[in-house]
């Protein structure tokens, strides 16, 4: 740095870049951190679990260490009938989402109620927990908050899971992992736009709809319908099954890839799936040598396909 000018230049550079960082990083993060989480945000983070991408609990993106969403119509402890309630079951060892570990990100009111009434700070990862979403009053305003039902009602994770049949369980969090891993978001967005799109794809999200979710996987490049509210317009698991196995069974012009490999080795009855035969028969169908396409196997309850369909059904 022989020249005095260069010293000045380096300082000017630090000043310019520093100011730019203050405006583009510090101000927005202060602004966004103070946002109040909506009910939608609470649902999502509780159903998805801690992280939707690479993480300690799930380094290979297999959907490990994620909560199970269950629909309860009776109290799992007393067995008394209750209003149908969605509960988010974290079996022992499943990491909690940010809203539980750092309630600050829930925003004013939601944080206060979740901690004082919902007792979320008593939740313990080693023992597991069951969360539900409730509504309460905060300074004259109705807000949704998280209740730790393990602390308030004694619902243990294992008993709650055992109290419902497999049909009432939804592997939403693991399904989101499949969505991220399989790159669905390279074609589908999860963000109806603010300016148009409403009529078909549904309402665009709001400022507080994402607190606690990571990654948000909005997608930038839309080659296919937006999926944020897909289950509101199409809630048929049967259709999803056919469509994921081979989209061209239900939509001949689709450019969506086949996701038959998510079925794994065996179908719901435990029979081995013969992919080669299926593909050969499908080709015959395409060539007009068969009247009907081959039967699509029912996914095994532990298969990745089932989890992905659970995730789709969650997107209302």
């Amino acid at each position, binding site marked *: 740095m022989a020249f005095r000018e260069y010293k000045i230049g380096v300082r000017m550079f630090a000043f310019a870049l520093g100011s730019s960082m203050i405006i583009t990083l510090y*101000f927005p993060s202060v602004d966004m951190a103070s946002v109040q989480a909506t009910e939608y945000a609470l649902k999502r983070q509780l159903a998805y679990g801690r992280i939707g991408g690479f993480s300690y609990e799930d380094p290979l993106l297999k959907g490990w260490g994620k909560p199970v969403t269950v629909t309860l119509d009776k109290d799992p402890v007393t067995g008394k009938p209750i209003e149908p309630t969605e509960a988010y079951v974290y079996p022992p060892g499943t990491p909690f989402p940010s809203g539980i570990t750092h309630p600050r990100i829930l925003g004013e009111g939601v944080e206060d109620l979740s901690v004082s009434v919902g007792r979320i700070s008593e939740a313990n990862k080693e023992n597991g927990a069951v969360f539900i979403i409730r509504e309460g009053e905060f300074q004259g305003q109705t807000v949704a908050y998280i209740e730790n039902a393990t602390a308030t009602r004694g619902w243990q994770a294992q008993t709650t899971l055992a109290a419902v049949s497999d049909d009432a369980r939804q592997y939403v969090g693991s399904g989101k992992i499949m969505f991220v891993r399989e*790159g669905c978001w390279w074609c589908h967005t999860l963000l109806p736009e603010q300016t148009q799109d409403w009529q078909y794809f549904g309402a665009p999200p709001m400022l507080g709809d*994402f607190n606690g979710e*990571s990654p948000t996987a909005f997608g930038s490049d839309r080659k296919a319908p937006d999926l944020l509210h897909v289950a509101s317009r199409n809630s048929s698991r049967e259709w999803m099954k056919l469509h994921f196995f081979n989209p061209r069974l239900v939509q001949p012009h689709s450019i969506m890839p086949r996701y038959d490999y998510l079925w794994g080795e065996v179908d719901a009855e435990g029979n081995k799936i013969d*992919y080669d035969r299926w593909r050969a028969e499908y080709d015959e169908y395409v060539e007009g040598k068969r009247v009907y396409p081959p039967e699509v196997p029912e996914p095994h309850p532990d298969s990745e396909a089932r989890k992905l369909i659970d995730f789709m059904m969650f997107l209302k």
Partner: protein
Amino acid sequence: MLKYLFMRNEDIPPGTAAVFFGFSSIVWFVLGTGLGSFNAAKLAFPDFVTGIEMLSFGHMRQVHVLAVILGWISMAFAMTMMYITPALGNTKLWSEKLGVWNCALWNIGLALGLFLLWIGISSGREYSDLIWPVDLVVIFGVLFPLGLNVWMTIKNRRTQGIYTTNWFFGAAVFMVIVVFLVGNTPEFFNLTGLTEAYLTWWFAHNVLGLWITPVAAAISYYVVPKVTGNPLYSHRIGHLHFWSVVVFYSTPAAHHLMAAPLPEWLKSFASVEGVLILVPAIAFVSNLLLTMTGKWRMFVENIEIKYTITGVLLAIPLNVQGGFQQTRAINWYVHGTGWIVAHAHLALLGFSTFLEAAAVYYGLQVLLKRKIYSLALANFHYWMLLIGFSIYWISMTIAGLIQGAGKIYEVPYIDVVIAEHPYMIARWVGGTLVFIGNIVWLYNMYKTAVAGTPIPAGRLPHELAYER
């Protein structure tokens, strides 16, 4: 290569690191565009290669994007930095050995990171798809050693002033390290929600704006004066370019999320700053075109100038698009459509690739002290790139406009998919031309290394006549 890794620094011939980087970048270019062409085929013909998880579109797209950005473009940058920085400082590279190690680690690290992405181990964040352990390798194993070499070489220079190119080089490596550190905080610290979404795009925007664009421009600030023999038209305009990049390019990240529920002030601010990107753009283009005064015939006769000036000219539509498509008035129509994909390729495959290709062509001839093997093949490569890119850009722009119309009139989505189909095929054809051109380039450079006419000491490659 292996023998140089364990030699004493003084014994490694100057330029070794640059040569390795040069050839690595070309190989990554071939691989990256091959992957691009494969992906394009899958979008045009969805049943082309099916049933294998690793070869499905969702597993391959990010591998293409990062192979071209971190393999081709960034390695070509490293190559140019390793030979231009010392040349402009009238000195040697600070550490040739560090450079060779840098190149080896870069290739290994990138191959590993891309392999992980390929089998689906990703962070789920566009452009920062690499998982955070790999990000740390990129920051401390790849970018920091590169920066160290550049900064120390500039510091040890034997000239008094620092030429514009070196200003850009030194600052850009520093900025890209900051961008990687800050842009990946959502993964390091599990930040969530809109903060995560915003930082994802803050990263994506700044990798392009504070790394790819300025370094590509800096390269041409060297190549054009060097090859034409004209001095740079104006250093002041060069400085205007530099400072306006730092100020205006680092701020509009939010314009990638105009359709998302970010705070309104942030979107408006980003949009205005985004238009100001035209300041560095105009400074850059006018400075270089004015440098060409009196030497325009070289645009036809000389292969490096042909590439560079094509890249500079492509910067004009690029920045006009870039400056205006992010304003609310236009963004609502084109957001999330093929138009943006076309724009991304105009920036990276049009503008930037042409500038880097020129520098790699030129640098390898200087370093190997051999004249380019075949002008005919180089011209063939040029036209394959230009025609292939143009087909790509035009077809995706049209596809994007169709998608935009489909979006605002809310036609059933499948009709848009059907309408886009011909353009998807055209894009595949165009991209495949680029891929074929690159294979030819690799061959041509290999032949240059083994059979190019030696350049006598003290002469520059462009002073010799082409032979084939």
